[in-house]
């Protein structure tokens, strides 16, 4: 399956190299001159991308890694792993780790289940297209705009509390964004509201690649409804599921805008995730060493999770 999804696969680097007519066979002098020119032209085509990425992304990355081993005193000295030890004894950072784990679980499970359910339910077309549109629409908003909308809903005199009071459930009305862990949970929900759309789109693409013959065969064998979904459709969505999990996971880990605009990580730095903690430590608390360590830890987690799902994709029987 998955002609289309192959596009999202981490490309197996350089499968073309071998299929090129090998320039290795007996180069006469004219051809080797040409080869040199080709080489130079290739370097020219590559240079802009390589230079921009190295100076503006990779060099800063290396600097951050280096900086994370130095402390935050007036005259900064080598500190070994002291900045990393903060994760064990600084309550703000341990809370941040907890929140990040909650975000990871929430941003994987919710978009996966909801995205799958909505894609399957709206796959038929007809009026369900409208339902799909409603779910996909928030995906077109920015994190900041989503935060503005949800602040309106969740603020103390906001829409959520008003609705609860209107239905006589005053006891449930609360400062949604003011208390941990509630504030983290509602922000995960807000994030799901925005990001489930991309899961829906991916699952729909996946559903379209399922050969109809398999469904017909299942029907002939008497499998229908739930059983057909469970035994025939779902196994064929495995590749897409892995992609959805990977994308949601990385987006959840990187999520900054929503938290920043809604709570700035507060109150009392209780709702920070690692992405927010890095900003707080570096630019507001002026602990660049600690901030760098947070950034490095975040990077490690993101790289590790990306590797998990990229690796799945790279196995020959990835689908």
């Amino acid at each position, binding site marked *: 399956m998955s*002609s*289309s999804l*192959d*596009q999202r696969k981490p*490309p197996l*680097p*350089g499968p*073309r190299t071998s299929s090129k007519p090998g320039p290795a066979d007996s180069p006469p002098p004219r051809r080797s001159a040409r080869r040199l020119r*080709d080489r130079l*032209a*290739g370097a020219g*085509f*590559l240079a*802009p*991308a*390589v230079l*921009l*990425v190295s100076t*503006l*992304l*990779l060099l*800063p*990355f290396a600097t*951050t890694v280096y*900086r994370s081993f130095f402390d935050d005193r007036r005259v900064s000295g080598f500190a070994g792993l002291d900045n990393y030890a903060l994760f064990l004894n600084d309550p703000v950072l341990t809370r941040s780790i907890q929140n990040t784990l909650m975000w990871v679980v929430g941003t994987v499970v919710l978009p996966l289940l909801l995205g799958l*359910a*909505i894609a399957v*339910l*709206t796959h038929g077309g*007809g009026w369900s297209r409208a*339902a799909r549109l*409603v*779910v996909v*629409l*928030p*995906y*077109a*908003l*920015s*994190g*900041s705009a989503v935060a*503005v*909308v949800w602040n*309106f809903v969740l603020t103390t005199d906001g829409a959520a509390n008003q609705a609860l009071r209107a239905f006589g459930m005053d006891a449930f009305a609360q400062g949604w964004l003011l208390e941990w862990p509630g504030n983290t949970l509602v922000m995960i929900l807000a994030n799901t509201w925005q990001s489930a759309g991309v899961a829906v789109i991916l699952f729909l*693409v996946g559903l379209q690649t399922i050969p109809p013959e398999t469904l017909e065969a299942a029907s002939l064998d008497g499998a229908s409804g739930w059983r057909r979904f469970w035994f025939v459709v779902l196994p064929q969505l495995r590749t897409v599921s892995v992609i959805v999990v990977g994308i949601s996971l990385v987006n959840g880990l990187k999520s900054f*805008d929503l938290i*920043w*605009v809604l709570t700035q990580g507060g109150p009392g730095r209780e709702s920070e995730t690692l*992405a927010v903690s*890095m*900003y707080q430590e570096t*630019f507001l608390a002026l602990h660049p060493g600690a*901030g760098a360590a*947070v*950034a490095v830890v*975040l*990077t490690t987690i*993101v*790289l590790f999770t*990306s590797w998990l799902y990229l690796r799945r994709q790279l196995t020959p029987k990835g689908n």
Partner: protein
Amino acid sequence: MPTIPGTPRRAPRTRPTPGRILRNTTLVVISLVWALPTWLLLVNAMVPAADYGGAPHWWPQGFGLFDNMSQAWTKADLGPSMGNSLLYAVTSAAAAIVVATTAAFATVIMPVKHKTLWFWLIYSGTLLPLQVFLRPLFLAYADTGLYDAQFGLFLVYVAIAIPFAYFIMRNFALTLAPEIIEAARMDGASWWRVFWQIHVPLSRSAMVAAFVFQFVAVWNDLLFGITLSTSKNIRPVMAALAELQGNYSNVGPPVVLGGALLVSLPTVVLFFSAQRFFVSSLKLHG
């Protein structure tokens, strides 16, 4: 609970079985829940700011949408920042696409050595979280006069956009038939000519898709906006929106929501006009 609006008409055999009713009900409930925040956004962005009594509205009342938007535009300086973001998004996305396409051309079609190395070097940029670049960039920008300058933001947005654009363009280039390029090379066309006259026209659809992706990413960026700029006439639009949200109680919810709606319009329009195109470009190859 609303009843199921009209059973699908095309197939006479679809009679409302319990399963179908359950399925449709679930769908209606999910879409109502999902639509609620959007509905509240639209309704309250339309309430005239002066009439807003402090409690959220659930039904439209009056029409002050354009007033609210123009208040957000002028008082909260959304206007200049939207201009900036438009500039950043268009120029940096376009530059990144060109750079990424040349790199993809080099690593797929030209006889370049160490293709895997170059691939990972460029692609690694999308795997790293943005936080890891912030402080070194901030310091370097402060030293070189790029801090709080339009060119500085342009530059960083280009760099950020290249890796993923490269990923898209490279995957696309892998699907192109090598024969055309080889034939052109046989005829003695230079790489430069082959690139502009053959490769770029062939890759146009993928370039447009990558452009849309990167335009949206730059338009929606908040992190670099608040880190690398501070003046009202330099900063991008999401930084301005975040500040407007910070003045929530002063300007009133209708203006803030109107502002959020206003800054979202470009990406929403782009997203939905390109949606068909996206899906087809996802399905196109293979």
